[in-house]
């Protein structure tokens, strides 16, 4: 009975979806707003521009307020998860991790951190940015938990980084509000395109986001692996 009902719902929705999608042109051209973004991506006169990576340009400058909300949602999820996991006994491991895992972690962990930092520092030039970089850093923390069963992560350090980076994001936005008249205004100018120090506040904000996401997800890993 349940299967038939589900099939009817899925079929109806599928027909509707097919009807809608068949009316959307595929692979024809850019929308009007995207044309504006692409045309103004690298231009000395426009304060919004200067990044090689147009996606980063949109995410951090045009939709910077949305990104602030996104970071807040991630923070709320991490907080909610630690609330649910508070006082919960985690699983006891019966065997030690193998020698390969232990030695390999010692060798590879600094490089994972380096890759994470590289990805969020070069967010305005290459694919990547704050969120993937932070996730890669958290992967390194998870690897440490897998190799050392009784490792205790520095909880207060994560909280300090998280809080100060969140504040710094808002402060950068407020400086833009004072200097340029709008929240997250690019007050540093475009700079020389293609260089590491360019694109105004995008690298600053992406370093802030990368550290914040890295600390947040590391705290999330800590909550799931440790007895709180």
């Amino acid at each position: 009975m349940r299967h038939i009902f589900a099939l009817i719902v899925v079929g109806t929705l599928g027909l509707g979806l097919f009807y809608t999608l068949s009316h959307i042109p595929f692979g024809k051209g850019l929308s009007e707003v995207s044309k504006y973004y692409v045309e103004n991506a690298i231009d000395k006169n426009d304060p919004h521009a200067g990044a090689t990576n147009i996606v980063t340009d949109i995410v951090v400058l045009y939709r910077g307020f949305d990104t602030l909300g996104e970071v807040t949602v991630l923070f709320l999820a991490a907080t909610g998860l630690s609330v649910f996991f508070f006082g919960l006994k985690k699983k006891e491991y019966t065997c030690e991790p193998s020698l390969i895992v232990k030695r390999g972690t010692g060798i590879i962990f600094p490089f994972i951190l380096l890759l994470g930092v590289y990805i969020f520092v070069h967010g305005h030039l290459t694919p990547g940015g704050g969120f993937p970089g932070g996730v890669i850093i958290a992967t390194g923390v998870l690897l440490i938990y897998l190799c050392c069963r009784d490792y205790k992560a520095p909880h207060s350090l994560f909280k300090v980084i998280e809080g100060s980076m969140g504040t710094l994001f808002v402060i950068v936005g407020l400086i833009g509000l004072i200097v340029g008249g709008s929240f997250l205004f690019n007050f540093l100018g475009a700079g020389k395109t293609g260089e590491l120090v360019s694109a105004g506040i995008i690298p600053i904000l992406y370093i802030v986001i990368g550290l914040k996401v890295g600390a947040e997800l590391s705290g999330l890993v800590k909550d799931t692996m440790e007895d709180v």
Partner: protein
Amino acid sequence: MIYYIAGGGLFLIGLYILLVNRNLIKMIIGLGFMETGVNIIIIAFGYVKGKTAPILSTKELINNRQVVDPLPQALVLTAIVIGVAVTALALSMVVSYYKKRGSLNLSKNKELKW
């Protein structure tokens, strides 16, 4: 067009999983399927035939700007992060539900029935 079919198919498979299963972990897997399907559809909206990624890394690209639509990619970047947050929170809820009830099957929860 194949991207629309793949994305819509993933969305519908996820919805079917969500409707049929009563196991909480499987329902969250269904949610993940739906999320991925929607992301693929949104990315496919921005596809333009014969153009490259929206990263102006060469002189030729800066002059010509033959790139695909960057806006759907920016939106999906946001959606992926939110998806991770939702999945993590949902799984933590499942853990605490299991500790309380001793079962992941929603049909065994009599308090949800009327």
